[in-house]
């Protein structure tokens, strides 16, 4: 039953620096146990980056939960598993193959598995989980659920995780269902006691209490973006369910129910409508924003495709809109539960005709929050759609980040809106008049004044006073003003961030969004190999002069992104007109999150003098 196979390969040894992967079947209730495990390490002050790797399915298909434990704070995914908790016979071979030599396999040994199905260069730890559960519980559901807690208990013993920490977490988790606390703790102990008695504890991999975490918090990007929408003053949300953006609106709804109820009346200071499709969701957002509300939708690539016509209207009629695009692998239905950064072009130039849209690229939940709130100010200020470009990797995984902060003296920037008093005072109102020479005209909300300031909003060409015209001069003047407005946006959107190498270098890398953690890790590793690399993280489109200067001041630039065609590279070439050959396409797009190893391999492929021996 208990088999510890001694191998020739030296067992992996590490403290606070390893990858644990759980292979489960979806719908088996493993997710909460796995989260409990990750959180217990977090509570010991050790940085942890968990990831859900899941199928587009509700029950029965393979799912994985991967946890990178990293004292150094590396939060990107990393290749190879150091400890595999193999609970899914369907994926057994694949799971075993992913274990690094000298790594560990933990599995349910109730049913004998032929020796040929194992590897001889890993440490095998069998524990009869099903047998233990069957002996302890009568009910089938209990057997299933407690099996998950039992393995958490065993892992605590194997990895030296403080059991008190897990007990405290269980008490927090079941605060509202107190009678569940005792049986869960009992199951936890059952696992721990069995491991202590029958298995070699601890393994070469251990968790040690640390202070590396500091003030950091752990939250998923979708929840953080939803909070950003609450703080940014979103009043109307219209949406259509689509993975991986659904949890963003669900989080918004949850936070609003707590934070946005009028105390005197109990009524809602917000409105959320689940629309019939994405066309209707963006239509509602545009209607609400036209009428002076802050409104947003959340969607993913297929939704963006459906919204194209409306996005052109919002651009041309100059109506604010905030869109959270939680990107997933395309084209078409693509891989709905896999991550990519593949909607840059379709968002930046959305709709027919000449258009350009504002994009924001958060790197983590902290920026999902700040950009999520800022997007509403930008949309109102610029009177145009603003896209917050998340992806599944940051949207749906809990990620460590700086705490969320808010400045209470901050006021919403509602942009250029003429009031009844302005109109009454005789101020000239032309809906598309460029009074301030920044390309941004003034608007009025419907219902402002009985006889002044009304105008007709349309997707057709119009003059400065919103009157229909097909005169070429008026059309061109309007289109040129829209470009002037887009240039104004350059100084309003978040500026790029530069991380210079320790030594002067002619090599630079340009990246954005969820590639951030892997890129920083790659920079460190490359520096260790003698390759100095300056980094520029793009945080928004339009690009400002810092981006142009960075490109000008480096001979070779690696544009790192998670799509096939190098969409950011295309945009840089299109907008800034550098020598295209200077920009090296470095793409990773198989749907798995990018790792430092991927980036290093991609960059090294462009360094001929450093080609592999």
């Amino acid at each position, binding site marked *: 039953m208990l088999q510890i196979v001694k191998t020739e390969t030296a067992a992996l040894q590490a403290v606070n620096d390893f990858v644990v992967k759980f292979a489960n079947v979806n719908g088996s209730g493993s997710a909460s146990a796995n989260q409990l495990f990750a959180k217990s390490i*977090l509570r010991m002050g050790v940085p942890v980056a968990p990831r859900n790797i899941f199928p587009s399915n509700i029950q029965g298909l393979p799912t994985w939960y991967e946890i990178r434990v990293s004292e150094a704070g590396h939060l990107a995914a990393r290749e190879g598993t150091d400890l595999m908790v193999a609970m899914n016979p369907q994926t057994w071979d694949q799971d075993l193959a992913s274990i690094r030599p000298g790594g560990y396999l933990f599995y349910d040994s109730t049913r004998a598995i032929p020796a040929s199905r194992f590897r001889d260069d890993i440490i095998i730890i069998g524990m009869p989980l099903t047998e233990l559960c069957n002996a302890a519980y009568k009910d089938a559901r209990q057997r299933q659920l407690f099996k998950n807690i039992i393995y958490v208990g065993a892992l605590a013993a194997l990895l030296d995780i403080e059991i008190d920490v897990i007990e405290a977490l269980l008490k927090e988790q079941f605060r509202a269902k107190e009678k569940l606390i005792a049986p869960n703790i009992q199951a936890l102990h059952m696992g721990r006691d069995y491991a202590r008695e029958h298995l070699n504890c601890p393994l070469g991999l251990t968790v040690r209490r640390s202070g590396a975490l500091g003030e950091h918090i752990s939250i998923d990007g979708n929840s953080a973006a939803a909070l950003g929408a609450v703080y940014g003053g979103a009043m109307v949300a219209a949406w259509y369910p689509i993975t991986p953006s659904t949890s963003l609106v669900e989080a918004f709804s949850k936070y609003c129910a707590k934070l946005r109820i009028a105390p005197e009346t109990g009524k809602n200071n917000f409105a959320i409508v689940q629309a019939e499709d994405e066309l209707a969701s963006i239509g509602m957002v545009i209607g609400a924003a036209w009428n002076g509300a802050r409104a947003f939708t959340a969607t993913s690539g297929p939704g963006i495709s459906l919204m194209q016509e409306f996005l052109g209207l919002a651009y041309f009629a100059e109506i604010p809109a905030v869109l959270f695009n939680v990107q997933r692998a395309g084209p078409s239905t693509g891989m709905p539960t896999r991550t990519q950064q593949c909607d840059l072009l379709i968002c930046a130039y959305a709709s027919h005709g000449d258009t350009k849209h504002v994009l924001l690229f958060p790197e983590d939940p902290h920026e999902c929050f700040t950009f999520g709130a800022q997007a509403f100010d930008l949309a109102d200020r610029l009177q145009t759609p603003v896209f917050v470009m998340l992806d599944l990797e940051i949207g749906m995984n809990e990620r460590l980040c700086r705490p969320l902060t808010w400045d*209470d003296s901050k006021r919403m920037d509602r942009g250029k809106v003429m009031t009844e008093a302005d109109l009454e005072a005789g101020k000239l109102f032309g809906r598309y008049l460029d009074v301030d020479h920044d390309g941004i005209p003034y608007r009025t909300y419907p219902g402002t004044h009985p006889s002044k300031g009304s105008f007709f909003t349309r997707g057709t060409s119009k003059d400065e006073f919103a009157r229909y015209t097909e005169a070429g001069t008026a059309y061109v003047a309007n289109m040129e003003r829209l470009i002037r407005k887009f240039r104004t946006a350059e100084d309003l959107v978040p500026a790029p961030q530069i991380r210079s190498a320790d030594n002067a270098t002619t090599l630079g890398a340009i990246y954005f969004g969820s590639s951030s953690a892997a890129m920083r890790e790659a920079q460190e590793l490359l520096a260790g190999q003698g390759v100095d690399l300056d980094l520029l993280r793009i945080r928004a489109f339009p690009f400002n002069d810092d981006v142009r200067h960075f490109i000008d001041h480096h001979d070779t630039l690696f544009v790192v992104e998670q799509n096939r065609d190098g969409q950011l590279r295309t945009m840089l070439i299109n907008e800034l007109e550098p020598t295209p050959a200077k920009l090296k396409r470095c793409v990773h797009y198989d749907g798995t999150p990018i790792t430092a190893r991927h980036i290093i391999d991609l960059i090294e492929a462009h360094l001929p003098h450093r080609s592999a021996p």
Partner: protein
Amino acid sequence: MTFLPKPKLHHPELAENALGYTRRDYEGAISTLCAGCGHDSISAAIVRACFELDLPPHRIAKLSGIGCSSKTPTYFLGNSHGFNSVHGRMPSVLTGANLANRDLVYLGVSGDGDSASIGLGQFAHAMRRGVNMTYIVMNNGVYGLTKGQFSATSDKGAKSKSGAINRDEAIDLVGLALQLGASFVGRSFSGDKAQLVPLIKAALSHKGPAFIDCISPCVTFNNHQGSTKSFDYVRAHNEAVNFLDVIPAREEITVAFEPGSVEIVRQHDGSLLKLRKLDDTDYNPRDRLAAMSFLAKHREAGEIVTGLLYINPEETELHDQLGTTETPLNSLTEAELCPGSAVLAKLNATLR
């Protein structure tokens, strides 16, 4: 679609409404539709209805999609904000606008192509969602702006101007509106102002989705022999079930009604709808199922039933269902919207 401002010449003795506005204050630019277009009569009916209801013109928001019908908001209510959105999507834009400010009156104008073809989905969902609006379809059974193709409300067997016969079944928007939960459903004819104006007034004072299908012949492409949407055909087949009078909430009710022949419906805003039943029908506009059956039977017989076909003054609307605050959302400030740093600090603490 040229913009022709109307000369501002006011007749010194133009009648004023209770707010001191004249009819002129409800008019828009000069219409550029074909001379004799049914849509212009509907525009005129909207102007008169708003004037007579004493609605402040700037407190009305008029929205439309794309097509001849959707151009009309330029030709009425020049002091109201208007939104000519994208084809078939007026309902979603109006829904969003309504969510932003529940205090305005929302008038959606659409056509049969805009609502029964490309926008059928949005039409359906706005009805079932209970958006508080007046939704007028100017129904001519034809695509006018693209020169005469059949629309989805063209009757099976109808003949186009070029002689083609429509082989597809017609979509009956009134039947759909009834099924989908509109709490006010009417049908009228652009050539019958006496029927249309009170119907629009009743719809504008109704709380909830009020739908009016207004047959509006296209003089250029669908007014010939063989068309079932021509002036002659509609006049010959019009079956009005009732005659409507709208008595605004502020007016004292002094008239004594003859029992049996008149039904009074009190609307949410206090206005009264006086429905005089026409001779040969015993139509009950409160009975949705009976209305559906009555309409289906008469449709089979090739008759166009008009009048106030269904009303439920008790129905809730979208804001009731959402539990939205009475204050228009677009006027909320940081105080109501932003929970502040102390709440965020507490939240951070739960995320460690």
